[in-house]
Structures are given as structure tokens and as C-alpha cells.
């Protein structure tokens, strides 16, 4: 195998994370992600999937390990002084969408979108608003620009949240179970938007329980359990004919094959 000429987009090395002495969530994760990849992380609850994304976003401290982003040091902890160093400049090139309470309830849709561009990047309000309206139009939300989050359906909220993250031109998008809290009939509209981004080669890391969506969107699937990567490969392999016993068990159970 030849080494890629461009550095990997993400290089996680030996990530360790525990909540207290008893609960180890990440037990030495090593993951590399190339630009343009769409990584779907699946696995049982408590296996460390969401923690992995939260660490990647810089929302959680780590006990040990490091992450490089685009060839630059991003997060590191040597495990001695219990301090996690996070480069907040690098962090700004990552966007994330969450499962719950994603939008700020006191701001309308456009205000939600332009808050960060205006405050963080000091963009002019008129410019940011113009970009916001453009994005909303693309996502079929042009009519909702002045609506408040409480007036939107769950699916609309999540689409607005995605648009809000895109306002900052992220180089990587993280999706943490963004459809898990939605009514089944609203899932498709959110997945469509993510597929739209995939078509534009947006690199993304996705945690999902929706195996059909995983199959559609992934360029690579990682099966995470017990705080380690159990299996890592193309979706046809990991979801279709997994090599590892534990992956097979999990896949069988979510697809209800044995019953």
C-alpha cells in the first residue's frame, strides 16, 4: 500500500477516555480518515460511538491520546497532568449536529444561522443573512426563515441545524444520531439533506442506528464496541458480510435476522 500524498483529514491515536475510574468508554482508539470519506460509526449503546464524536468536536476531555486534523495538532493529552489541550482555531473547521435541543429557542431560524458567523467571524449581518437565506432555500426551508424553532417539525429543526453548521464552512461534519428522536415519517427529509452534502463530497462522521441509512451514505463503516474498533471496512463488508463474530451478532440483531 502506498502512503497517501495528502495527509489524512483526521488521525486519532490511542484515544483513551473514562468517566470516573470504573467506566472506560474509549480504550485506545486509532482511526484515520481520508479527505472525502464518509465514516459511519455503528455499535451497541455504551460502546463509545457518541463519545467518539463528542471528543472529536472538543466537547469532552480525554485521558490520553491525540487527534491531528488536516495535518495539524488538534487535541492531545499526555495522561500525566489530566489536561486536554484543544486548539480552538482548528475546532472551528468542524461542524456538528446533535440529537436533541439543537436550535436556540429564543432566536428565529435566520438568527440561529447567523449568530456564529456574526459573532465568531465578525461577518456583516446583511452578508450572513444572504448566505443563510441561500442555504435555507437549498434545503427547502425558504418559507421558514422567520419562524421560531417551536413552530418547526422535528425534521425541519434538524435541517435548520445542519444549515446552521454549514454557515461556518466546516471541513468535516459530525452527525450524532440526528434522526433518532424523530418521528419515522420525518427521518427521510433529514437523511436527504445529508445525502445531498455527501454528493458534494463533504467529509462526515456519522453515528446512527439506522442501518439502511448507514448503507446508503457510508464510504466506510466502523463497528465500535467496548471502547475499541472491532471492525473497519467498506459498508458491503461490515454491514453485509462482517468478518468479526461480534459485528455479525450485532448486525443480525439490528436486522432481526434470527428470530
Amino acid at each position: 500500500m502506498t502512503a497517501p500524498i495528502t495527509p489524512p483529514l483526521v488521525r486519532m491515536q490511542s484515544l483513551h477516555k473514562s468517566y470516573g475510574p470504573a467506566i472506560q468508554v474509549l480504550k485506545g482508539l486509532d482511526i484515520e480518515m481520508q479527505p472525502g470519506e464518509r465514516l459511519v460509526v455503528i455499535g451497541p449503546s455504551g460502546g463509545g460511538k457518541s463519545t467518539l464524536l463528542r471528543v472529536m468536536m472538543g466537547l469532552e476531555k480525554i485521558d490520553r491520546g491525540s487527534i491531528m486534523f488536516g495535518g495539524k495538532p488538534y487535541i492531545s493529552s499526555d495522561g500525566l497532568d489530566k489536561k486536554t489541550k484543544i486548539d480552538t482555531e482548528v475546532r472551528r473547521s468542524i461542524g456538528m449536529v446533535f440529537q436533541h435541543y439543537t436550535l436556540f429557542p429564543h432566536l428565529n431560524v435566520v438568527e440561529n444561522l447567523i449568530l456564529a458567523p456574526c459573532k465568531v467571524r465578525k461577518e456583516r449581518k446583511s452578508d450572513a443573512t444572504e448566505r443563510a437565506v441561500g442555504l435555507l432555500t437549498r434545503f427547502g426551508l425558504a418559507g421558514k426563515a422567520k419562524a421560531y424553532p417551536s413552530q418547526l417539525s422535528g425534521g425541519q429543526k434538524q435541517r435548520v441545524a445542519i444549515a446552521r453548521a454549514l454557515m461556518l464552512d466546516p471541513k468535516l461534519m459530525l452527525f450524532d444520531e440526528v434522526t433518532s428522536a424523530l418521528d419515522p415519517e420525518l427521518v427521510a427529509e433529514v437523511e436527504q439533506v445529508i445525502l445531498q452534502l455527501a454528493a458534494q463530497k463533504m467529509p462526515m462522521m456519522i453515528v446512527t442506528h439506522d442501518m439502511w441509512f448507514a448503507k446508503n451514505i457510508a464510504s466506510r463503516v466502523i463497528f465500535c464496541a467496548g471502547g475499541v474498533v472491532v471492525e473497519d471496512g467498506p459498508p458491503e463488508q461490515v454491514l453485509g458480510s462482517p468478518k468479526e463474530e461480534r459485528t455479525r451478532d450485532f448486525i443480525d440483531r439490528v436486522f432481526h435476522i434470527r428470530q
Partner: protein
Amino acid sequence: MNYSFDFQSISFAPLWEGLMVTLELTAAANIIGIVGGFLLALLIMSPIAVIRLPAMLFVEFFRCTPAIVQIVWFFYCVPMLFNVFLGSMTMGILALGFNLMAFNAEAYRASIQAVPREQIDAGIALGLNPLQRILYIVLPTAFRASIPVLLTNGIGIFQQSALVAIVAVQDLMYQGKTLATETYRPIETFTVVALIYFAVSFPVTQVVGYFERRRHLLMS
């Protein structure tokens, strides 16, 4: 019972004067309570124990003693202990204001801590710095959430303010007592006094209800 009611002998002028004093007390105490309560809430959430503990002691003192004791204590003990002599009106405002400050601080604290963790996470993910997250996300949400409780506490103080009559502040209750003694018509007088308190309080409670319904809609 053959008591014949006589509302004719109740003169409204002193009651009106008393109501103005009561409203003045309420307004001043609410200004202290709303502004001071917010600052106090920041103190009780401080990670530094030297700041947090005295603030908590202040809050718990006012929450765990009867308001009437606080008023009497302010009126008699503060001048003696600290050698300050303020007018009875000022004393009344301070006692009620500090009481309200303690209750409002708790309201602010509860609503600040009720802002979902995910909202702050979303702020981090959008690159907002800690101060921006507090100013643009936590405080606007928390302040809106605390409005119903602030109003309820505020109208509570309007009613509690009747207690300052015992330290000779000439509020609505004081005027009512005086009038009852002068006219020998306590039943009629206190009925009218109660109705006046009700007429002011009731609309405010309706406004609180409106805010709460709206908030449930907003948060759903």
C-alpha cells in the same frame, strides 16, 4: 346575625394613599430583587467557595425565616447593630427587597441550570467562546424561563408588603387599620382592603399563566 353593613363610612382617600405607598414599596423591592437577585444568582453559582458560601447563607437566611421576623429585625436590630438610621420606608424597602432578592436568585439559578447541556454544546460546536455562550445562549433562554417565577415572587412581595404596617410604614394595610379604628367598621374596611389587594394581584397572576402557557409551547 343582624349586623348591618355600612360601606358608606369608609372613605377611600386614605386607602388610595396607602395603595400608592404599597405600590411604591413593591416597585422598589422588585427593582432590588430583579437586579440584585441576578447578581446574587451568579455568586451562588461561583466555583469559589469564599464567594459562594456567604451568598448561599444570605439566600437561605431569607428563605428560612418568616418575612415578618425579617422586617421586625431590620427595623429594630439594624439601627442598633450597625448604627444606621434610615426612614421606616427605606427600611421596609430594604427588608422586602432583600427577601425578594433571595427568592429571585433561586429562580435565576434554577433556570440557568435548566438550560439543556446540548445548547451549550451547540454553542461550542459553532465556535462561540465561553462569554459569548453565556451572553447569547444561556442568559436569554434562562431569563425568559424565569419570568413567570419572577412575576409570581414579585406579586408575592406586593402581598407580603402588608407586613410593614407593623413598623409604621403607612401602606395600604396601615391605612386600613387606622380607618377601621376610626370608623369602628373593621369588617367593611378590611373587606375593601382585601378587594384592593385582589384587584392588583389577580391580573398579574393571569399574566403569569399566559407566560407559562407560552413557554410550554416554546419548549415543546
